[in-house]
């Protein structure tokens, strides 16, 4: 038990948890304030983005050399870290439905959190933990021009659906496939490579 507590502390888990909780509360509060259905979808996506990028700083420890030198099998632990963290974010955001009207369906939230968490993990492996949010944030912000209040998500061709996966309706198959692929790729890259040293 003690190693786990120490690990979580070294990865800024309390601060991350506080941020994610803050996002969940914000989602609930905005759900009370915004009643336009398209505004609700946009808010749900942006809150999921905020909660997911909060995981980024925790993907690197304080001292990469110390981590490397210790006789610990990091890859499965790193994979477990990102998977558990993503699941907690999705669960917390979905739990806001218990306290009021739901902003977005559970499946919708789960898809977006999975894909975005994969992007964060990929960003950590490629750019380093501090710059990891760059990838999901830029992608989402670019795609939001096609989100409902500002435009309509494209319905074809397939590559456009896949590029705008986070704003697609929840039942679009190729969007889900893209999110899952990003989640798997991100988890694998982060598990194998760890956070890039910046």
């Amino acid at each position, binding site marked *: 038990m003690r190693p786990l507590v120490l690990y979580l502390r070294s990865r800024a888990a309390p601060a991350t948890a506080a941020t994610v909780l803050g996002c969940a509360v914000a989602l609930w509060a905005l759900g009370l304030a915004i009643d336009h259905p398209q505004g609700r979808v946009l808010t749900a996506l942006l809150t999921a*983005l905020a909660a997911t990028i909060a995981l980024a700083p925790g993907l690197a420890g304080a001292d990469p050399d110390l981590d490397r030198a210790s006789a610990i099998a990091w890859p499965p632990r790193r994979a477990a870290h990102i998977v558990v963290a993503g699941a907690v974010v999705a669960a917390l955001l979905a739990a806001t439905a218990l306290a009021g009207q739901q902003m977005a369906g559970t499946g919708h939230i789960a898809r977006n959190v999975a894909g975005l968490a994969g992007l964060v993990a990929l960003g950590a492996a490629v750019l380093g933990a501090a710059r990891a949010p760059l990838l999901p944030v830029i992608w989402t912000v670019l795609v939001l021009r096609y989100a409902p209040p500002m435009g309509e998500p494209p319905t074809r061709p397939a590559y456009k659906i896949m590029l705008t996966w986070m704003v697609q309706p929840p039942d679009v198959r190729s969007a889900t496939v893209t999110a899952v692929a990003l989640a798997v790729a991100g988890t694998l890259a982060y598990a194998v490579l760890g956070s890039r040293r910046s």
Partner: protein
Amino acid sequence: MGARILGIELRRSVAMPAALVIAAVGVFVLFASNPPYRSWMELVVVQRDIMQLTWPLALAAGAWQGIRERRSRVEELIATTARPRPQRVLPVATAMAIAAVVAYLVMLAGGTGHLRHPDGYFPAGAVPLIALGALALVAAAWLGLAIGALLPSPLTAPMLVVIAFLGLAVVPPMLRDQDRGEPGAVLLLPFLQGPRDGGYELQVLSARANLSQALWLVAVAATGLALLAAARTATRVAALLPVLLGAAIAVPAMPRQLAAAWVADPRATEVVCTRDEPQVCIARMHSYALDELSGPARQALSVLAAKLPPAPTRVMLRTFGDGRDDGRPPADTLLAFVSPDDDVLARTPDDLVEIMLDGAGVPPCPNLPGASPGKVISGGSRPDAEARYLAARRAAGAWLLDRDPEPARAGEELDVTLARQALDALHALPADRQRARVAALRDAERTCAPGDRLDLLTGTSGTR
């Protein structure tokens, strides 16, 4: 000394990479979100509109730079230096400001690749719009620097993007009034949406709106810089003064409704003419098409000279709804109208000749049924009188060109059928009677005399 430090900051800070990312994102959105822009004004306004996206990014770039000392764990070391904080932060603030301006201008330069006629009319009113956009990005970068310095967390920068984007998306609909539209206070937001009626080409932002917006943005930038330079809590509180002052002056100075901030640009609809004969004139916003128009204009004039003398010697293409005098044109001028968002070059020369010769080269009369220029012809059946009037004009053009009326588009079926009948009736007559009938129609159109034009053409007056 200062220049050397600035040079180092430009090379070593996030300024240039951030400028690159912002410009790249902006160019991508400029290209991806719209078909090619018809005018400079449209491009410039859309670039301001997408600041909903680029402004949060500039804010985040500033914040990323603002937490540099914490990230590199040299915060305490730097705090021990004797150099006062304002002097220390000025070079990095200057570097970020340069980056913001460069990003905005590079974005605009990239956007011109998506402009149909870069040689077209560039209104003077576009210059303040560009300058204010660059100023808004500078304000964002400086505000971001201050926020990053005050909240040095690794999450500050990405969270600022999300929060600013969400804020910019959610706030304007909240301010919108169902009946009266947006209040002028939305000009406080960094992005600017074009006029609601979409007439980018015909309008510019009023000087009053530009000035109050400039004042507000300068106040925001000043607050950002002062917050960054302030080392003590008291000075930080004092640093909020410019933004409060700016709001207190700018908000009352702004127009009450956003719609009032857009004013007509008279220069855009002024006609410019070629020097050589025959003289061709067109609204300045379409002046890019002047060279290509001379062929169709010459053809239209020669057709008129051959079949319906005396012919006019000058061709003028004006814009619907240009707010100019709608008096009848003199006999030496062939006047026709195109719509402001019409890309004249996208039309074929044949099409242009047909537009010029509609109604035998005389524009529709405003006092006759449904013939007001600028009226958009929508689907569905239109009143009979209107169809008869337009059919007569169409038949006159087709008679001059010796061809069938154009195939009908949606909502125009009745016009075309009537025009065909009139044309058949006309062709059944001897040549000089045909000419007399069309000349009578032209004279009636010139004076806007009341009466049914189709009857005039077919000679069945009295049956209706």
